């Protein structure tokens, strides 16, 4: 293998310096303020790893145990910090292993830059060892991607990558860099990207649309807000709170919008969608004005579109013009950045309280409480429920924890019952529903916010999809709290089998390993709880532990998540049992 020594001959001019492509990559990352990146080495990216070695006091590379883990860690990092997550991998299998995480980041609008090594440019298209067309493969799941074959393209392309990833509606970008471009020397100079000619990240806001929105809101008798991650991504939490408080509008969230305002806020009426709360789902079909803010009317939120909020005038605030009228026809679309739009909306609104309307939410909450919540939180039956575990975590973290959940029943329960005081606290795979997301995402979240308590909640199924990241936790000493709610089933699928496939439990029962022994194998403190009486002490031990901690809770095997909107049903036909 060719080894490059470039210490000599630093032909420096005032603004440029002669360095290799791979060193330039590191310098670009530093210039973008990257302090942590997640990745896995291999042949085609080795020159960059060599530079990472030299720059290890400036930039921390985290060796994950799988490239998918690297992407989810970068996502967790981005989701809790609002910064761009970065991951890096080699060509071929390294690159293809990134795809799930990239697709997840794309559908959940997570800013991420992925750097992949590629075979030498003279080998492109020759089916060379570990050559794969990752630009082609990743095209449908990236906001933007490109391939670099010359070192001189590196600064401009990486600057563009970061700019595109974080501006406007954020998303993942992938930059594929051939090995020869990594070795090649050139005169390096870095300029941050300030704009791309063909790309307008934030559309102009039409003042008339704001006025029209305000008028509809001011005249509404029964307005309902449904907000999504756009409030968090736009850093508009304060503006949002001011708007809902002034206009007194009951406000419900999508799972990615959760935590933008505290759970305990009196105007927070809970979660919409398939397993959301009863009141906001039912009342979606009774409101007279539906105000969607930074959300995209996902089918898991709307149920059957033909009977979704048909009686209501719809106002849609969004930064992405392509979302307007995509699923739900809007009466007023307010394009633009959520922070600015909400700020400008505020003075146009009349103060209001909508007392009677609020009472309807309270009444329906009571029904949900009696039928569902009471049994979830205070069960009288023997088996531990998932919700009980969340309740205990809420109590012991005082609602200050960031909850990173995986995908399945436990995720819905976590979103329904976790209490949040701070924004950016609900980190979960929403749009893609990627099992295996939580453990690596929790690593990224904890590393980005070391002062926050980060509690991961996974099922026995999803946990095993990225369980290898325990190795990363051990090696990096990341003090995440790992909770597995073990029902010995792929519970969410089993629930559907029970309800819609006559209990034919095809391939959903799991024979599980000794999870505690596995955690201990990675030198992580671990415990298993099987009885209710031990739960409190176990959660306390976990929260009090300074290092990482693994807690397995054996929960009831065939518990179901309710309420539930069956596929194809209307939001107002949500089932309580």
């Amino acid at each position, binding site marked *: 293998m060719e080894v490059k020594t470039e210490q000599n001959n630093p032909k420096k001019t005032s603004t440029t310096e002669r360095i290799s492509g791979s060193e330039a990559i590191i310098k670009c990352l530093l210039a973008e303020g990257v302090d942590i990146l997640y990745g896995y080495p291999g042949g085609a990216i080795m020159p960059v790893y060599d530079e990472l070695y030299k720059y290890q006091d400036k930039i921390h590379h985290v060796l994950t145990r799988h490239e998918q883990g690297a992407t989810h860690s970068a996502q967790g990092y981005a989701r809790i910090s609002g910064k761009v997550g970065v991951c890096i991998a080699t060509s071929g299998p390294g690159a293809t292993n990134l795809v799930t995480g990239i697709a997840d980041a794309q559908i959940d609008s997570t800013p991420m830059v992925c750097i992949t090594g590629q075979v030498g440019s003279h080998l492109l298209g020759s089916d060379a060892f570990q050559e794969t067309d990752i*630009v*082609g493969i990743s*095209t*449908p799941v990236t*906001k*933007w*991607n*490109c391939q670099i074959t010359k070192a001189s393209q590196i600064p401009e392309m990486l600057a563009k990558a970061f700019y*595109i990833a974080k501006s406007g509606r954020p998303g993942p970008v992938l930059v594929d860099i051939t090995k020869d471009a990594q070795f090649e020397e050139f005169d390096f100079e870095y300029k941050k990207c300030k*704009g*791309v*000619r*063909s*790309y*307008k990240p934030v559309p102009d806001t039409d003042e008339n649309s704001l006025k029209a929105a305000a008028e509809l809101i001011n005249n509404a008798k029964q307005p309902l807000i449904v907000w999504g991650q756009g409030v968090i991504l736009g850093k508009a939490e304060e503006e949002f709170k001011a708007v809902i408080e002034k206009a007194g509008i009951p406000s419900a969230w999508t799972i990615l919008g959760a935590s933008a305002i505290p759970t305990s806020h009196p105007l927070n009426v809970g979660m919409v969608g398939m397993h959301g709360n009863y009141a906001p789902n039912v009342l979606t079909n009774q409101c007279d004005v539906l105000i969607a803010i930074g959300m995209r009317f996902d089918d898991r939120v709307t149920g059957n579109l033909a009977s979704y909020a048909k009686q209501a005038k719809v106002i849609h605030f969004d930064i*992405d*013009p*392509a*979302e*307007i*009228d*995509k699923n739900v026809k809007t009466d007023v679309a307010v394009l633009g950045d959520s922070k600015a739009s909400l700020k400008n909306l505020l003075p146009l609104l009349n103060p209001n309280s909508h007392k009677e309307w609020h009472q309807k939410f309270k009444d329906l909450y009571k029904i949900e409480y009696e039928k569902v919540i009471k049994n979830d939180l205070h069960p009288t039956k023997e088996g531990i429920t998932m919700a009980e575990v969340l309740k205990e975590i809420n109590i012991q973290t005082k609602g200050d924890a960031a909850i990173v959940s995986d995908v399945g029943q436990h995720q819905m329960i976590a979103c329904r019952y976790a209490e949040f005081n701070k924004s950016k606290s609900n980190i979960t795979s929403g749009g893609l529903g990627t099992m295996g997301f939580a453990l690596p995402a929790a690593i990224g979240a904890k590393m980005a916010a070391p002062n926050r308590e980060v509690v991961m909640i996974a099922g026995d199924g999803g946990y095993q999809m990225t369980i290898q990241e325990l190795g990363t936790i051990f090696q990096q000493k990341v003090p995440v709290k790992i909770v597995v709610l073990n029902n010995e089933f792929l519970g969410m699928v089993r629930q559907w089998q029970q309800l819609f496939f006559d209990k034919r439990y095809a391939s959903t029962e799991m024979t599980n390993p000794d999870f505690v022994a596995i955690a201990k194998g990675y030198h992580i403190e671990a415990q298993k709880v099987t009885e209710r009486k031990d739960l409190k002490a176990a959660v306390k031990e976990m929260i009090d532990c300074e290092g990482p901690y693994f807690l397995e809770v054996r929960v009831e095997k065939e518990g179901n998540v309710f309420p539930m909107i069956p596929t194809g049903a209307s939001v107002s036909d949500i089932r309580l049992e």
Partner: protein
Amino acid sequence: MENENRQFTVSIYTENNIGLLNRISAIFQRRHMNIESLNTSPSEIEGVSRFTIVVNITEAQMKKIQGQIEKQVEVIKAYYHTEDEIIYQESCLFKIKSELLFDERQIQNIIRESNARIVTVNKEFFVLEKSGRKEEIDLLYRELNVFGIMQFTRSGRVAVTKDKMKISTLLEAFQD
């Protein structure tokens, strides 16, 4: 109207980029929309390419597609037009045995009446070029097919709009 299939000609102004064709065709492909024809070329602005795509879809679908296309980072602007809003042409080539040109009187008449042009003739074959609207080309095809066509190919549609496009102003606006 919004829910009936119609023919739309989509004009997309883009940066020059190798991967963009993939991104744009995927937008149609994902939704199982057949592209009737696709053409890419330089545009009136240096460094800016222009895609011309013909599709048969509803206007409601068309609007969503337009949004998805414009969302691509390297797309400057996408427009869609109905048949009466554009001037368009398609072009085609016929390769035909040379002997027919001399043996079959009819062929010469057909060529003259259709405003087709002979590009080249040699002993073996001659090549005929015709630009026009799709129906004119279809007609010519049917007429010549009677005698036998060695090769035939038709280009994608190219179109200009009756209205102004204002791309230059847009580009300037992007740059402030």
